[in-house]
């Protein structure tokens, strides 16, 4: 398996939507 680690998640708001089964990214959400 590959793994997306937390360095590559920094500053995005990463959304885990377990209802709609989707993962979201919103750029520039925190410094």
């Amino acid at each position, binding site marked *: *398996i*590959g*793994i*997306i*680690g*937390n*360095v*590559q*998640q*920094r*500053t*995005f*708001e*990463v*959304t*885990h*939507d*377990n*209802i*709609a*089964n*989707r*993962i*979201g*990214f*919103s*750029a*520039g*959400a*925190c*410094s």
Partner: protein
Amino acid sequence: KANGESTFGAVRITSLVPSLGCSPSKAPGHSSLPVVQRNGPCAAKSVSKPNHLQSLAQDSLRVASLQEIVSGVSRGNDTVLLGSQISIPARSGLYLGTGNYVITVGFGTPTKSQTVIFDTGSNVNWIQCKPCLVSCYSQQEPLFDPLLSSTYRNVTCAASACLELTSRGCSGTTCLYGVTYGDGSSTVGFLAIDTFTLTSTKVFSNFIFGCGQNNRGLFRGAAGLIGLGRSPYSLNSQTASSLGNIFSYCLPSTSSSTGYLNIGNPLRTTVAYTPMITDSRAPTLYFIDLVGITVGGTRLELSPTVFQSVGTIIDSGTVITRLPPAAYSALRTAFRAAMTQYPLAPAASILDTCYDFRNSATLTYPVIKLLYTNLEVTLPATGVFYVISSAQVCLAFAGNSDSSQ
């Protein structure tokens, strides 16, 4: 530029390095929780702080344990003890890794603050509890005392909450939980129910968690752990009826700033989505459909099956992204080709592409995009580099050791 988008980025070296003081970010909403890197200036002083090489070594162990969970190769059953009389079976599981990010939440009535690791790769919530019948490690806040909470109660062995636990036992009629982590760290105690305070406006009664009485290992001062995985015991699953089973978090770029965790609808309105995949090999982990990578505006010549044949997890507790060997090799080659103006520095553990930027105030680097189904994610500079020092700034990706991992 390609299609109007920059294919190279520029960043001041100093902006990648954490400052000595804490510069907390403004909370985006009153109902979100601050997230801090546990070893940085925004966190309370931890018991021990690993250096970069120790952190990367721990990260490799976490990755190895995730690989084992997905591959189904068990390291055998283990037994964890509560006192000398009671033992319960517990499979060795996830390695905690650096447990990088912590939040502060409340347990009991009246509420008592406890700073805990949060982890999308874990499912069982637990904190250390008095009377610590067997063992507790030191933590920054006072230990949670069930006797001081008017709403605390133990779960009985006959309760469904107990029967559905993977690793459980009984002491008389009281349900015991146990978690053994891949590094041998473990927690055993009473399965409990109490009020849980996420924020002042998000308070939940009947929250199920482990009240740890025998806690050992590398938790380094955190009071416990909050799991954000996909099992019914995770925080998000337990709060789903009122908030929906949705959460979002923002991890700060350095340890001197803060991020947030939000349970419920995302705080941002501009969220771009890709499908969340369920993989029967590890149904409580979050899989995501990575299909390609671009470096400096050019897509690496890799078939999507390079990624899809093995699958990809997204995990808050793993530090460095791991790629299939062919993908990492192509990424490294393309990245190095675009960075020839900078002197290479020695490798750092698993990071084999490092540069010496001591003679540069600003660095120019090829933009990296991760391509998911229906979504392109452009990494900021802080998502490309792992900074050990200005003399050793490394590409923050690593390859798995074989293509079947």
